[in-house]
């Protein structure tokens, strides 16, 4: 790993997609929807990061609100329980002066058997231009994008994708590790530790981080990494670096970032894990394990945490933890994405007036 890091520090590796985003030649945003990170180029990621910088500045103002989305309606439709993602989207949309409509599936006509497509048609007929959707079925936002006339933002679908989480994680690493330059993450070692198999956060992070050139390690019990060896091999063909291992000490050695994932209790019932206690003993992120990582390595967690299981309380609250940064950055990243999608071609942006 060391030779790769040194090589990157001295030679400026040029990848075509990065060259397109050089200062002074801004590339336009061309995506109408945000369904996953897999179709975002390095230039797209860089634009999201720069726009997030501007939103961070807005959040520091005495009145943290700008009129960019005035007159637009953002509908937030959640088929799963959530606090931070839903509230984060709501605050982001309100900071941009959008009108916000919140629908929780548990209190809507969904309980009367209305289909997703019918619900989306209803939401559109009621005036929504942007739809933020969380659904327990993988791929649901793609169906929504086929139906909905405006822009769809995936706020998490099944095990498949959670693009805004991956982008806020990327922004947090870029701020803390790379001095605000996305290129600075190239070759850095990032470990995603835990239940990768059931994690939409992990899947979207795999795309975002490998596009940014990170040296990505996936670590956990082999039952929770099933199938990722094949992904790593096929990704290697495209120049993405993914290493899959169950050896936690190997994965953590000299890591620049350790991201622990939530362990869900229902995984025990399906026989994938013997017990929470055994998981904590073998894979929990403790201070001792963290000491294997590079000095000052970042500790991340997408939340909500099971303290004492996948992450020790002292590590979660420790000096290396940037978990509260992640939550704060979530608002700025979602503001940036709402703003970019609202101005995208085909998203119903008003004709230029001047």
């Amino acid at each position, binding site marked *: 790993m060391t030779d790769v890091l040194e090589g990157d520090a001295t030679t400026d590796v040029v990848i075509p997609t990065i060259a397109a985003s050089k200062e002074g030649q801004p590339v336009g945003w061309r995506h109408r929807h945000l369904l996953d990170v897999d179709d975002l180029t390095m230039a797209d990621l860089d634009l999201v990061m*720069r726009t997030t910088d501007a939103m961070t500045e*807005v959040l520091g103002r005495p009145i943290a609100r700008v009129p*960019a989305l005035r007159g637009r309606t953002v509908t937030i439709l959640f088929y799963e329980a959530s606090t931070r993602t839903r509230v984060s989207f709501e605050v982001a949309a309100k900071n941009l002066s959008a009108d916000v409509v919140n629908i929780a599936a548990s209190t809507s006509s969904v309980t009367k058997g209305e289909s997703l497509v019918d619900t989306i048609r209803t939401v559109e007929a009621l005036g929504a231009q942007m739809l933020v959707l969380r659904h327990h079925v993988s791929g649901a936002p793609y169906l929504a994008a086929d139906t909905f006339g405006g822009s769809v933002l995936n706020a998490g679908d099944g095990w498949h994708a959670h693009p805004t989480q991956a982008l806020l994680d990327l922004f947090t690493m870029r701020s803390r590790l790379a001095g605000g330059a996305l290129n600075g993450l190239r070759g850095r070692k990032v470990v995603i530790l835990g239940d990768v198999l059931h994690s939409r956060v992990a899947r979207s992070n795999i795309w975002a981080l490998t596009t940014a050139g990170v040296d990505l390690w996936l670590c956990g019990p082999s039952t929770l990494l099933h199938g990722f060896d094949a992904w790593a091999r096929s990704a290697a063909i495209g120049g993405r670096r993914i290493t899959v291992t169950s050896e936690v000490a190997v994965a953590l050695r000299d890591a620049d970032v350790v991201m622990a994932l939530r362990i869900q209790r229902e995984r025990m019932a399906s026989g994938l894990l013997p017990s929470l206690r055994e998981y904590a003993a073998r894979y929990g992120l403790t201070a001792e394990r963290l000491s294997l990582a590079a000095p000052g390595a970042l500790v991340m967690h997408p939340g909500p945490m099971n303290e004492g299981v996948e992450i020790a309380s002292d590590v979660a609250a420790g000096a290396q933890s940037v978990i509260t940064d992640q939550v704060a950055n979530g608002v700025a990243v979602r503001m940036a994405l709402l703003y*970019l999608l609202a*101005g*995208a071609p085909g998203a119903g*942006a*008003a004709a230029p*007036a*001047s």
Partner: protein
Amino acid sequence: MSGRRIMTADEIRRATIRLSHEIVEKQAGTDGLLLVGIQRRGVPLARRLASAIAENEGAQVPVGALDITFYRDDLSLVAQQPVVKGTELPFGIDGRTVVLVDDVLYTGRTIRAAMDALVDFGRPQAIRLAVLVDRGHRELPIRADHVGKNVPTSREEIVRVHLEETDGEDGVEIERVAELELTGEPVG
């Protein structure tokens, strides 16, 4: 540069010095004065005005930068000019006289957006406007307090201001819109 030149580097320099005198004269000094450049070329112009004032009056007038991207009334420009350049107002504006500085005054929509942005930061005693070029064709009831050069134009023309800080050289030129369509750069 490809168009017809309407201001040389020397003319820009002289106009900047005259504007700096006018601004101080109108304020009857430099007390309470703030210069705020509108991104992008208003920012180096504001800095030039501040250094001219420092030379004439021996007083340092604070300079800020205002990005009005989020206050525009045309979101469709996002796709063309996506990168936000940033707002930096490292001072309070309550009770002060804020002089907005921009390169070209045209429809007035940029200035409308800038005033909206500014009042989100506080309540200035007065907002004034200084521009290097006024090319007419206002769509809003807005006028500049200080103008470097009035240039009669048609709507089919585009006025381009080049500054050393952003473009490598100083100069103002005018060209036909047919040439604009090739580059697609919108102007305020």
